[in-house]
């Protein structure tokens, strides 16, 4: 058994979106290296509650690296120091006894702080709602093998679909750009035959919504790819740009009434 850790936390405390926030120092004592980062915060919060103080608010849900809720920047890196690891999957053995740890919320105009470390990522939901869907015929399901899909397309689509919408890409980007997230969602559908009918409408709608939410623009620093807990590749951004260029060149304004058999 390795020895317990004693850490000093510098945590961003902010009452709500309107108030200014500030860093507050808290000791984290007798932390087992086997705990997750969130369990460490639970211990600190229990202590605060016992003392009658306001516990630190942070987002979390599945605690198994799949929901994307746990969002915090730890010592300047979204989800902390380990590659491809969400905060809930980060263990305290990644830290040394006596370390001081700075914990901040995702920082972006489009992600307003709700409280302390919790931010409102509704902007992502609205981007999805703007075009991250396909139209399906209802009725009895088709045979799974009725629609041939090349293995490569299925793989690339699955890789893009691994995005859990955590927002670490936005948090890590010096421009607070959401292009890794948006491109993952666009390509997840765009690689599959089911995604084709809306493909060129989708890319314009989702990028329009991304702009309306006031995210920044990609300047190809590559910080998003390095921070992404799911290994989403920047190649997705290039493919999204390609689709956007094609969509913009071939866009037809909607016509009224449908020709057809009258």
């Amino acid at each position, binding site marked *: 058994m390795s020895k317990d850790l004693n850490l000093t936390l510098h945590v961003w405390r902010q009452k709500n979106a309107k108030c200014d926030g500030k860093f507050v120092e808290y000791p984290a004592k007798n932390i087992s290296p086997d705990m997750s980062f969130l369990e460490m915060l639970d211990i600190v919060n229990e202590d605060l509650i016992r003392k009658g103080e306001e516990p630190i608010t942070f987002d979390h849900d599945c605690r198994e690296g799949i929901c994307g809720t746990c969002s915090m920047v730890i010592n300047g890196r979204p989800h902390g120091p380990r590659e491809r690891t969400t905060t809930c999957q980060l263990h305290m053995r990644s830290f040394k006894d006596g370390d001081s740890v700075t914990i901040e919320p995702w920082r972006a105009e489009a992600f307003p702080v709700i409280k302390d470390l919790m931010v409102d990522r509704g902007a992502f939901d609205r981007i999805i709602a703007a075009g991250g869907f396909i139209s399906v015929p209802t009725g009895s399901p088709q045979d799974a093998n009725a629609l041939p899909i090349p293995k490569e397309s299925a793989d690339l689509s699955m890789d893009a679909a691994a995005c859990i919408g955590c927002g670490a890409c936005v948090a890590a980007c010096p421009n607070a750009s959401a292009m890794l997230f948006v491109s993952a969602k666009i390509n997840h559908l765009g690689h599959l035959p089911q995604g084709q009918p809306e493909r060129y409408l989708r890319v314009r709608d989702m990028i329009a919504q991304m702009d309306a939410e006031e995210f920044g623009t990609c300047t190809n620093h590559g910080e998003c790819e390095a921070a992404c807990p799911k290994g989403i590749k920047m190649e997705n951004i290039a493919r999204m740009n390609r689709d956007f260029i094609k969509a*913009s060149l071939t866009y037809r304004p909607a016509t009224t009434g449908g020709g057809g058999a009258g």
Partner: protein
Amino acid sequence: MSVAEQSIAGAEARGHGFLASSVGRKVVMAATGVVLFGFVTVHMLGNLTSYMGAEAMNHYAEFLHTMVHGMGIWVFRAVLLTAAGLHIWAAVTLTLDNMAARPTGYRAQQNVASTWSSRTMRWSGFILAAFIVYHLLHLTTGTVHPNFNHANPYANFVNGFKVPAAAGFYIVAQLCLGLHMWHGVWSCTQSLGLAHPRYDSLRRTFATGLTVLVVGVNISYPIAVLTGFIH
């Protein structure tokens, strides 16, 4: 709250067009960047005539001024001016948007993938813009040249770089060009949608090769003058 009144922008926003959208302006920046990098590369090659002596360089300059009955150079100038104008417009508007997208910074942001070159694009670009203005006043119009002679570009080039301050600024500007090119050449492939795992490492190699070539040869000119190799 920034967030578009919490609504889906949808069709109206879609109508706001290519040039208003962030990705559209990135494409403009990348496409005009390709034109500008193409120009600097050809410009660097053309000036190699200086190593072949006064006659070769003056002859080359005369060719530039007389090609297509003297129209050619004006076509080039118009294209370059448009490209530079669009490039700077896209760079400035996108940079302002990007700064607005992160109003509060981090206490301790750790960059792990970005480079010095990628983080200084706006500064290297700004110095380049200032340099381009100076360079035109120096060797094209002669306004800030100590003894300019319209009939003898070779002499203007040699006498211009004999002034150490002029040669120094030129060298600093070339280093900025190197910073701008190294990230820019790679970055514009992404912005234009050119990425494939088979060629990805080639993009970096190409950016490095082109940058070293253009900047290296360009810096050799003032050094060759200052050391008396070109006289």
